[in-house]
């Protein structure tokens, strides 16, 4: 398959006077998982939202997929270009059923072919969605909604999936399955940008990772190296609740 790259250059995002992201450069390739680590407020969600076109004005950047400039496109055009986002807070259609949410996931023209197969895949990934396909998504439990959000994003047959804290609210066993599945999806040729608080687990499946601190990228490299780096461990793997960590709160 062609080597398409999702590249972000000089991304700056500000909410009114408040600047959330400054000159971010990053890239992700199809087939790899890129983890983004950072404490809260670092700007991880803003980064993903910016790529997905949700920030609108107040953003300046070069965002491109395989050379195609995305920075000025509307969210729906960006999805068509092959990037789909699982946003912070899930963004489900609460008053629509699980099935309808998933079908809408494949609304993109690029995704209409092979919709049934993908639906089957999602159902096998999260059986609960199959059992409840007629339930209103708003009435699903927290974790169930998380599953639906991920499933819906995959329905768009994306080249790149941006996941904002996908394991949020998932039971451990489901989380483990999810991470294994993500790895498999990547291996099948989809690029994954993963914002996770569950640093240890995400570093385990990621190929590379970026470190963010208040709006900047402060580091990065292969997941393995970072996982081994004591500094990173102290900052993100929180070895036991020492006072230092408490003061950081």
């Amino acid at each position, binding site marked *: 398959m062609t080597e398409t790259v999702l590249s972000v250059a000089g991304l700056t995002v500000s909410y009114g006077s408040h600047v959330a992201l400054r000159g971010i450069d990053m890239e992700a390739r199809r087939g790899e998982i890129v983890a983004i680590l950072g404490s809260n407020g670092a700007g991880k969600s803003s980064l993903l939202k910016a790529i997905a076109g949700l920030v609108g004005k107040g953003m300046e950047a070069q965002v491109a997929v395989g050379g195609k400039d995305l920075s000025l496109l509307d969210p729906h055009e960006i999805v068509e270009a092959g990037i789909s986002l699982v946003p912070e807070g899930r963004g489900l259609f609460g008053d629509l059923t699980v099935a309808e949410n998933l079908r809408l996931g494949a609304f993109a023209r690029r995704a209409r072919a092979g919709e049934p197969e993908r639906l089957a895949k999602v159902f096998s990934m999260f059986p*609960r969605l199959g059992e409840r396909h007629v339930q209103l998504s708003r009435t699903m439990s927290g974790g*169930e909604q998380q599953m639906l959000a991920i499933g819906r994003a995959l329905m768009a047959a994306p080249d790149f999936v941006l996941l904002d804290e996908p394991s*949020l609210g998932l*039971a451990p066993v489901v989380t483990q399955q999810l991470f294994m599945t993500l790895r498999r999806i990547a291996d099948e040729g989809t690029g994954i940008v993963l914002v996770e608080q569950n640093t240890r687990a995400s570093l385990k499946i990621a190929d590379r990772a970026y470190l963010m601190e208040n709006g900047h990228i402060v580091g990065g490299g292969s997941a393995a190296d970072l996982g081994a780096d004591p500094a990173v461990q102290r900052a993100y793997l929180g070895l036991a609740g020492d006072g230092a960590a*408490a003061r950081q709160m």
Partner: protein
Amino acid sequence: MTALLEVSGLTKRFGGLVAVREAAFSVNEGEVMGLLGPNGSGKTTTMNLISGSLKPDTGSVRLEGRDIAGRRPHAIARGGIARTFQLVRVIDDMSVRENVISGLAFRENPLWGVSANVEAEKLLARVGLGGRGGVFAAELTYVDQKRLELARALALSPRLLLLDEWLAGLNATELDGGIDLIHSLANEGVTILMVEHVMSAIRRLCSRCVVMNAGAVIAAGETAAVMAEPAVISAYLGDEDD
């Protein structure tokens, strides 16, 4: 230890689906108890039944012996049960301080005016939002909003505190801080019932746990023991290693 909260025979149906079935457990004065279970097993629903956002179909919820099942939420809140929400709920266009005051102003022995402001600042400092009282809640990040929510709950000076996945979405460092915070609350004698999927936190915080599956309680007791039960492992933990 005496039981502060006693739940028995609690049942809630949604149409055909039984979200909570004959649930029974008790929380002791001053302990931190975990409420675990796979997604959709009925934990939040149980929390809602205790805090009054939902009325149980059958069963009783006793706070210090008084049955509060089916009473209106504000009465239960004044009666000493405070809660946080699985999806954060803060009031966007109020200042952080006002959000906390909303917890102080309507409790059993309300605070208002200057005294409320002072107390609010104390609580904010307590959850690590010291000095941010002036900004609008909307401008906080997800995690800070969770902190704010906790401060608001504490403002009610509750007998029992219900935390629904309050630690979710914190990174390791923040998690440690969060855990310490809950610890300190427990040490001050606040009784806590917490829903969590973060096992490390459960291990460090909870003396006892209740595990639900498909609406029913499938295990209860000492955390370590419960976690070792095969039923719990297969239904919930998997070969966990986080």
